[in-house]
Structures are given as structure tokens and as C-alpha cells.
């Protein structure tokens, strides 16, 4: 295996809330290879967005990030703010779920691309202008030379997301962090944006971490997937094998919760209950109270993420006793 572009070990993030310190990311381990799309999937509260934000330390002041985030061999966690800024937006770009709030409404889209070009490249004035138009063209905005002077409110939802990608791409990042970039979009527009991301990945040789709650999005666009539960990685591996034969009871439960075409109007087999509140797990498997496979062995400690064959990782005590996912068998 090649050296990972990004290697996260024991990432832990605490936020200050009215109920005191809450650990929202609780020891995440992850690797991102150059040029791959890694999906981070989980339900609300699983810590997937917080993991993403913690990589760039986008956590508001009383909150804390600890552990190790090795970016091309350099640990980002102890860096000072000034050093961090040189990496944010330059080597690692980020796009968000709500482009309307992430874009500045009083600056034209072109101005926001130029801003990033000024900060992170040494292009001259006219070269920057040309590059801005080129970037809008790259993300599939038609008539880019005219639209470069438009303001975010003149763009539709899908176009705004494209514009935000163009801004992120201005500095030629090696890694793009995408936080639910298609959740607010309609399915045909989601399809366009995902296809765009896959195309950009291929042409720009850029790695992507894609946070989503939609397993279909993972299946269609990611190379590898990390399933998060209660602030930890439950399972990690290449998308095909993970979906075909999950090695964590939670992954299996998630897959079974999605309606499938061949059992119309049959009851689904959902995971009962709800995810635990942060910091209420204790020394046992966090999924145990909702798990059909749970035994006494699950109650002794939080199962560590162990390495299985084919580069797969699982934190499930009973990973080898799970049923196969039915639809994959057909």
C-alpha cells in the first residue's frame, strides 16, 4: 500500500456545550490514500461532520482537538493558527452543505475565487482573472465569462455548489473535504454534483473525503468508506466488499434499513432505538443496546478497530458471525 496522504490516529474532539464538555469525536482512526474518494457515513450525531472539521481544526474556541492528524507526514494538531492557515484552503480545500451560507452574498462569485487565488497562488492580475473563468468552466457553469461577475443569489442551488467547488479548487488542493455537499440538493442535481466531483478527482488527481448520510451516495461515488457510530469508526474498507458483506452489525443494520426494490410493502428490518448521546457509552460496544448480535463479550470493553484481511477494519466483536446482506447475494 502506498503511503497515505492523510493519516488520522486517535482523533478526539470535545465541544463546550451548556451541559459541559462533550466528546463528539471519540478516537477516530482513518487513512486517506492519494486520489481516492473516502466516504464518511453515519447518522446524525455520529461525529462525521465533526471529524471533517477537526482535520482543519475548524472547532470554535472552548472546543478541543487532540490526537494525531498526519498530513503528508506532518502532524497538524500541534500547529499554530498561522501555520494552519497555510494549509487550510491551499493544500486542503473544503465545501459545505449550504452554499448560500458558505458563500459571501455581497461579493460576486468571481471576486470570491480571486480572493482565494490571491491568498494561495502567485498568479498575476490578468492570469487570475483568466483562471477564475477557467475554474467556473471546469465545474460546469455555462457562459463562465459572463457569470463570473454574478452574485451568489443569482445562482440556483446546484450552481452555487458548483461555484463553491470552483472556489475550493482555486488553490489546486490535494485533498477536498466535502461536508454533505449534496444533502440540500434535489436528486438530479445531486447526481450532477457527484459526477462532477468524480470527474474532478480523476482529472486533477485530488483526494476527496465525502461526508454523507446517504448510503446510495457512498455506493455510487466512493472508493472506500468509513462507517461512523457514536464518534468512532465502526467499520472501514473498500466500498464493494463492505456493502456486500458488512463486518460490523451497525453497517448491516444501516444497509437493511434502506428499502429495497424486491420486497415492496414488506416490513423493513430497522435498527431499533436511537444512537446514544455523546459520553454515555461507557466501557462497552456503543452499538450494543441496539444490536441483535450482542453478547456478554460486547459488554466488557469498547471493541478496538482491528485489522482484517483486504485492508478492512472492524470494531465488531462478532464481525465474522454476521449474515450476509441479502441483496448482495443475488
Amino acid at each position, binding site marked *: 500500500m502506498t503511503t497515505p496522504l492523510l493519516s488520522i490516529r486517535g482523533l478526539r474532539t470535545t465541544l463546550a456545550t451548556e451541559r459541559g464538555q462533550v466528546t463528539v469525536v471519540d478516537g477516530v482512526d482513518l487513512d486517506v490514500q492519494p486520489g481516492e474518494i473516502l466516504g464518511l457515513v453515519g*447518522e*446524525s450525531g455520529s461525529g462525521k461532520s465533526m471529524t471533517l472539521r477537526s482535520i482543519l481544526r475548524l472547532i470554535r474556541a472552548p472546543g478541543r482537538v487532540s490526537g494525531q492528524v498526519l498530513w503528508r507526514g506532518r502532524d497538524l494538531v500541534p500547529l499554530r493558527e498561522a501555520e494552519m492557515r497555510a494549509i487550510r484552503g491551499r493544500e486542503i480545500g473544503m465545501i459545505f452543505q449550504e452554499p448560500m451560507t458558505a458563500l459571501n452574498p455581497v461579493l460576486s462569485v468571481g471576486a470570491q475565487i480571486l480572493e482565494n487565488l490571491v491568498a494561495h497562488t502567485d498568479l498575476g492580475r490578468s492570469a487570475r482573472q483568466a483562471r477564475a473563468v477557467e475554474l467556473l468552466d471546469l465545474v460546469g457553469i455555462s457562459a463562465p465569462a459572463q457569470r463570473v461577475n454574478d452574485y451568489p443569489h443569482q445562482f*440556483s*442551488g*446546484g*450552481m452555487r455548489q458548483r461555484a463553491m467547488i470552483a472556489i475550493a479548487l482555486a488553490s489546486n488542493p490535494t485533498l477536498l473535504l466535502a461536508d454533505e455537499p449534496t444533502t440540500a440538493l*434535489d*436528486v*438530479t*442535481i*445531486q*447526481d*450532477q454534483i*457527484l*459526477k*462532477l466531483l*468524480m*470527474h474532478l478527482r480523476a482529472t486533477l488527481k485530488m483526494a476527496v473525503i465525502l461526508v454523507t*448520510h*446517504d*448510503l*446510495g*451516495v*457512498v*455506493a*455510487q*461515488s466512493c472508493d472506500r468508506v468509513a462507517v461512523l457510530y457514536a464518534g468512532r469508526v465502526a467499520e472501514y474498507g473498500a*466500498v*464493494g466488499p463492505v*456493502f*456486500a458483506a458488512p463486518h460490523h452489525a451497525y453497517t448491516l*443494520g*444501516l*444497509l*437493511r*434499513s*434502506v*428499502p*429495497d*426494490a424486491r*420486497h*415492496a*410493502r414488506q*416490513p*423493513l*428490518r*430497522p*435498527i*431499533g432505538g*436511537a444512537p446514544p448521546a455523546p459520553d454515555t457509552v461507557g466501557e462497552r460496544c456503543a452499538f450494543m443496546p441496539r444490536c441483535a448480535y450482542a453478547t456478554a463479550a460486547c459488554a466488557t470493553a469498547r471493541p478496538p478497530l482491528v485489522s482484517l484481511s483486504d485492508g478492512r477494519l472492524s470494531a465488531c466483536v462478532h464481525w465474522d458471525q454476521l449474515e450476509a446482506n441479502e*441483496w*448482495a447475494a443475488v
Partner: protein
Amino acid sequence: MGGSMTMSAVAQSTANAPETGSAPGEPLLVVRKLTKTFARSRSLMDLVKGEPRRRVHALTEVDLSVRRGETLGIVGESGCGKSTLARCLVRLHRVDSGSVTYDGLDVVALRGAALRRFNRRVQMVFQDPYGSLNPRMTVRATIAEALSVHRICPRREMPARIAALMDLVHLPLSAAGRRPHEFSGGQRQRIGIARALALEPDCLIADELVSALDVSVQAQMVNLLLELQERLHLTVLFIAHDLRLVRHLSHRVAVMYLGRVVELAETEALFAHPRHPYTRALLDAAPELDPSRRGSAEAAVRGELPSPVNPPPGCAFHPRCPVAIEYCRRVRPELVRLRDGRLAACHLAATEDGLVQSTEL
């Protein structure tokens, strides 16, 4: 247990409710040429230029019918008018023109007490679990209010009826004294369903009921809907943008685009062989759960939804349609019955089935 007895009473009375009723499978709710527009406020510039007040065409001549006891799925992207349709059906909106007939009753003309009686029979569950419940009222008060306003049962039977309704939606009785903020999204939707069912309706309109919920909770709600429909013989309008959910729950599905129904068919026929290019695009764009069946590298459909203020002439989908011809740009296709019995509004599908002479195109 008294609770379960009253519960079956709920089921009984609902099943027996339609005295005048048509047989199962007969159309219960018939919508014809339903049109709804919303006025947009004019800007000062418009006034100066003397431009007429512009209108958003939310629904244009929508035709569909819902059969007694079935689940009709309504699917489409934001702006297609599916939520407006739901609100018109329960008379939250006044319609501009067209007719809605419920079990022979002219819904559009209803007022006052007659409208309230109609609402008892057709209930709605809302999308936003955080906004659809009064934050100051406990679960008990919420359900009790519905029971007492409509005099569903004598006061002394109310606690038992409330318990039965909570049991019906699988909420523990201990939750009765709590307010909405103490519940998760899925539990709030259960409260919303219990409130609707308190009126013993025979038709339930579920507007994006599960859209705001996590996938495992969605599945719990899907099971609840299936169970309730079975027990109470409900007719359900399931409105959603998630094709997988609609496919799983619906007997028939209507696809909407820019305020019109473009295709309406039995679920399996629709998903296996979509006839309208928009339906096809929608299915292609929906991410398949099986990673071994990846779609093409190309997006399923280009472009974005046109403005509902100035809908394109001809077929509303033609600017994005991969197979549109010149004729589609000029002439709007009617919703016609194709050979296999489904309805579709596409010139090409109609021509394929020999319903239109190709020389016309």
C-alpha cells in the same frame, strides 16, 4: 387490557366509517384539472414598467385519483408542487380552479362545519417534526384536544382512548405528560400521526413524513405506516422525494414535474419501465445502493428546474430532455392513457404506442 380493546374500537370505527362508501379499489379521491398559483409581490421596477403581477405556477391542471385502501406515492423534486398539492387537498390552500372530489363530495366548495367534517376524514401529517407540534402542549393535551373538539368519545373514556392511540403508534404511555422538545424527531412524527388518527380518518396524507429523519428511524416509520394501513384500512397519499421509500410503500406512483403530473403508473411498472423521460432521469439520478452497479460517468439529466414563474412553452421538461424534438418545444403533451394502462404526458411515448399519428410530430 382495556387499552387494546379501545384500540380495536379505533380500528373498527375507522373501517366502518364510510357508510356511503365505494368498494375497495374504487376511486376515493379524484382530482381534476387542479390549478393553483401564488401571486408574487411586484417590485417597484415592475410597477414603473407597468408589468402585470407575476404568478408562480405551483400546480397546473393536475389530474389524479386515489383508490380506496391504496397507497399512492407522489414523487418529484422540490418545486414540483407535491406539497402544494397536499395542502390543496386538505384545503389549507384555496384552489384557483379545477375540482377535488372525495367520496362524491365536492371538496373545493366546502366551508365551515362541512369543511371540518371533511377534515375529520382526510388528515395530514407534516414534514417538519420540530414545527408541527405545539411546543407548549403535552402529548396528552394534543391528542385530548383533537378528541374533545370533534367529540370523538365521552370525556370519561378519553384517557383510555389516548392510551390506545399512543399504543397504536408505539409510544410508551409514560410519554403522555411530556412536551415535544423531550422527544426525538421520529417520536415527534409518531405524535403527529397519533393526533391525526385521533379523528379516525379514512385517508392520511403524509407530506415528506420521514424526510427529516435518519435512515434507521425512517425504516421504523415505514414499518409503522405499513402496520397502520393494514390495521385501520387507511388510504394513504405518501408524498416524498426519496424514490426508494416511495417504491417500497406505494401501490401506484405519480411523478410530478413543475406543477404537473407527468406519469402515473403501478409502482413496479413505473420503476421497471419508466415511459416519461423525466421519470427515467429521476430513476437514473437516484443513487443505487449496490456499488457493483454504478451508473455512467455522465449525469442523468442536464440543467436545472426552470422558473415556475415563466414555465417553458410546450413540454415543461423539454429544455432538459435528452430526446426532445422540435414538436415538444411547441405543443404541450396531454396526460394520456398508454397501452399498458398507465398515464404519461409525453409525445414520444404516445407515438410509440400508436396513440398519435407520427405525421403530426
